[in-house]
């Protein structure tokens, strides 16, 4: 019977009753209680702000993180911008098996396969494009990859662009990326697709 949806007029919790007690209906006392609460927040925070302005760096009057300058550490499990893992010689570890392209629910990966010069390696991608405008960051491509050739651990989250074409990241861009640092901060700069580089 404990439905979260209340029917009729019967309150589940007397504190949330629609019938107000006399004190509550009188408003004034309850208003003063509320004002005391907010005023306490104001005074405490103002005191901490003042202390901080006076040089006490441990005093924080606000929980705000000043975002572009200051970031909260990202979880290592965070799925951020993709990167292609490199071999020793710098060529992609990807063998163009099309697993990621097949599993991708957003159809945002486009691969063109090519012969690899080394006969022991089957194939190599001639093209490997990810359309980040379509990507839903589900991580299925990482799961599906048999070669551990694609990862989403760059820590890069800011790759907004002014047009859709700029959201398409090519093999060269994805190969150049490095994994994030231990605190989750990106260690490589936000990549800019070549046609978006200011001339």
């Amino acid at each position: 019977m404990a439905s979260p949806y209340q029917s009729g007029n019967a309150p589940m919790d007397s504190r949330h009753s629609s019938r107000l007690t006399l004190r509550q209906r009188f408003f004034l006392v309850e208003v003063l209680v509320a004002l005391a609460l907010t005023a306490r927040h104001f005074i405490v925070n103002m005191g901490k702000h003042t202390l901080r302005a006076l040089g006490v760096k441990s005093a924080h009057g606000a929980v705000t993180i000043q975002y572009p300058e200051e970031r909260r550490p990202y979880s290592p499990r965070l799925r951020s911008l993709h990167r292609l893992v490199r071999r020793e010689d710098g060529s992609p570890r990807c063998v163009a098996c099309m697993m990621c392209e097949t599993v991708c629910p957003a159809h945002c990966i486009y691969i063109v396969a090519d012969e690899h010069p080394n006969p022991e390696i089957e194939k190599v991608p001639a093209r490997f494009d990810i359309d980040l405008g379509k990507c839903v960051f589900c991580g299925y491509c990482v799961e599906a990859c048999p070669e551990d050739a694609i990862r989403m651990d760059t820590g890069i989250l800011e790759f907004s662009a002014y047009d859709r074409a700029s959201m398409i990241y090519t093999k060269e861009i994805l190969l150049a990326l490095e994994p994030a640092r231990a605190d989750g901060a990106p260690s490589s700069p936000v990549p800019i697709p070549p046609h978006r580089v200011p001339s």
Partner: protein
Amino acid sequence: MSGRALDLLLQAMPVAFIMFVVLNFGGILTWVERKQSAIMQDRIGANRASIFGIRIFGLLHPLADAIKMLTKEDFMPARADRLLFKLAPFVSVFFALTAFASIPFGDTLRIAGREIQLQAVTLNVGILYVLAMLSMGVYGLMMAGWASANNFALLGGQRAAALMISAEVAIGASVMGVVMVYGSLNMQDIARAQGHPLLPQLFGNWIPAWGILTQPLAFVIFLTAGIAATKRIPFDMPEGESEIIGYFIEYSGMKFGMFAMADFLETVVIAGMTTALFLGGWQVPYLQASGFAFPWGAEVALPHLAVVGLQVGTFLVKVSAMIWFLMLIRWTLPRFRYDQAMRLGWLGLFPLSVLNIVLTGLVLLVLGKA
């Protein structure tokens, strides 16, 4: 300089001071509102606007806002009444500004052998004047609602009118208690009378007879109705920016800014009026015209200018504190429903203020002052 010109100049001084203070308070309140709400909510608040990297706690945001407002498209609906549509924001701001005129911000200033009342206009019916100007302000809103040729705006204007009427009755009736106690409609007289000791036969000279002590009930009623008169949360049903939208729905650019400005100016007026009527006006406890005279017998003589400066400063501090309190209320309470606000005005505040008048009359009779 001839004596007449000097007279004029000295008379213009309080007016200029009032205009300067009220306009600047109104302008800076946009910043105060954002910052105070942020601090109350454990945030930092607006701090990004900068000139050459100088941010000064976000104080440049009002400036940026003004530039934004002035450069925005000034839109007018095709079927709007052109004259009334343009007039409405000016009416709103004008009456909010003029309302402050008869609120005294200091005692008499003696300079160059002349006496200047520190009050823009010395009126024997000062209280009625402020009330009248406050009520005239609603014409701006009704004009805006009517002239916009928009049903939502019209409804908003009507809500504003209804709210204003229900608030005004309570304001007027609660102020009557103060008028009865101090025996004057002149706000300067009321401010002066609040410097007298309260019940000297009981407390000696210890407690000044501030309105909040002689008229506590009237203070609560006046403050509640005063907040309603400023049309800000918890009584912002004329505006309801977030969803129901009100009389200024068709306004943009600086015209919209003027409506917002009028709200802030009215906040300053209500704070000033509360200070003048209930918080002792410009009175500093134990400060007489010649200096401090403490009830335990100590006396500190002060020159005339220092006394006046202290009084004006105290008035500004009291007004600022009052504004802080009004902002605190605005960022604490949720909005009343429309019918709740009406019920509060007509069935709560109005009967209570009439009761207050009766009680005040009885007490005055018992004390033998009637």
